[in-house]
């Protein structure tokens, strides 16, 4: 059965998609796992990184997107989940020169519209908005879980904000990774998403849950090594579990997300940042194992 890993933060621009892709590569290449990435963000950045612009357009024309999957199979009676996936994506090879097992359910610019349609569809059955919302989220959750039999790891790249799909992903995930940038508003966003993940109403409620019992971990991204960033990191660490790995602000990381048609080794792709990506993968893999064992 697959392990579900969500990468989420209500704030945009913190590195959710790039970290999702790093982990996809890490689990597939270094971990030898069968990995599926579900692109739940209508910006579709993870899809573009993994298959390039042309690949993404081809997927849209073939109706292989997350919006198509949700709309076509919402009533859970038609369509096979596998029909919506694109296989052998990514521009890396493993140590033997083979393509690692990476599949993608591509993102869609229409994902918000699709969720609106699903809400209206469900609203025909019930009138209470809370009940309708809960049912939509529950259905999406079951649709996400339908992939668990064919993969070892399913990575859920969530959109910023609070879509039904993001909420379903947070409910489904065995572990939620919360990337943040070391700045004031990111700090506030971490507080908020933590409440959501642990279904707590206030910071005081959340504080009652020990850090090592939380279902999420925060990862600092784009660190430049200033004292101010360290202080923000320390302030967040008072209230939230943190990964030891910190991703630096690095041109090697930025360059790595430019899709290339010719697959290369993961070391070639990430260049000087390979060590950071590997540490991230190893720590997340270890946390995931601990969560599932608990």
């Amino acid at each position, binding site marked *: 059965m697959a392990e579900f890993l969500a990468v989420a933060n209500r704030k945009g621009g913190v590195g959710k998609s790039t970290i999702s892709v790093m982990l996809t590569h890490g689990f597939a290449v270094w971990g030898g796992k069968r990995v599926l990435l579900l692109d739940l963000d209508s910006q579709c950045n993870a899809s573009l990184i993994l298959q390039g612009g042309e690949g993404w357009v081809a997927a849209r024309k073939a109706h292989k997107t997350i919006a198509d999957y949700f709309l076509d199979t919402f009533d859970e009676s038609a369509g096979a989940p596998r029909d919506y996936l694109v296989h052998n994506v990514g521009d890396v090879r493993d140590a033997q020169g083979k393509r690692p097992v990476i599949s993608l359910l591509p993102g869609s610019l229409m994902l918000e519209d699709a969720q609106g349609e699903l809400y209206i569809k469900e609203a025909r059955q019930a009138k209470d908005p809370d009940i309708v919302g809960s049912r939509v989220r529950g259905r999406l959750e079951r649709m996400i879980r339908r992939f668990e039999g064919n993969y070892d790891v399913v990575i859920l790249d969530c959109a910023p904000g609070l879509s039904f799909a993001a909420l379903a992903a947070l409910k489904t995930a065995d572990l939620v990774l919360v990337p943040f940038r070391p700045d*004031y508003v990111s*700090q*506030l966003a971490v*507080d*908020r998403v933590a*409440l959501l993940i642990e279904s707590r109403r*206030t*910071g005081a409620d959340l504080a009652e849950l020990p850090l090592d019992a939380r279902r999420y971990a925060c990862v600092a991204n784009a660190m*430049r*090594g*200033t*004292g*101010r960033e*360290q*202080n923000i990191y*320390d*302030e967040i660490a*008072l209230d939230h579990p943190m990964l030891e790995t910190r991703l630096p602000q690095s041109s090697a990381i930025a360059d790595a997300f430019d899709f290339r048609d010719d697959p290369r080794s993961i070391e070639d792709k990430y260049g000087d940042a390979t060590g950071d990506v590997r540490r991230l993968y190893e720590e997340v893999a270890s946390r995931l194992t601990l969560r599932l064992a608990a």
Partner: protein
Amino acid sequence: MAKNTRPLSGASQRKYFRDLFRSDAGVAPDAAERLSDICATEIAQIRVRLPLAVRKPAKPVVAAAVQTAKVAAVVADAPATAAGGFDPHGFSLIVTFRKGGKDALIAKLDEVGDVERLREIAKAQHVSLDAGLTDRADILVAMVEGTERRIAHRQAAAS
């Protein structure tokens, strides 16, 4: 002379003596402790030389004010590892307060030499400080209150 030195008293003076004696390889650790205790008891106030990196050259008043603002802005984003220089992010007001409470923060701030450095810390860590405050004790209290307000803002934002 005064621009290249700063006065120390109380906890910051005691810390200075301890660091000074500990840094001398010829002084045993327990002797360093004893000497620093004696000095702290016998000497009310000392004036120490600033490291070269943080000495301010004499300049016309207006130019100096502009320069101070520029330096503060640069220091605010300077790496924590900057050797020798004063780092206004050397410790977090919020973390210190939340871990040890008001007394711990006051004690930590009391280790900071002069008032200008306290102002630098307040500015860098976004704690409001009335420019009219001149008394060191008032500034410490204001910084603690400002830190409490920052914590309250964060808690409110997550509600």
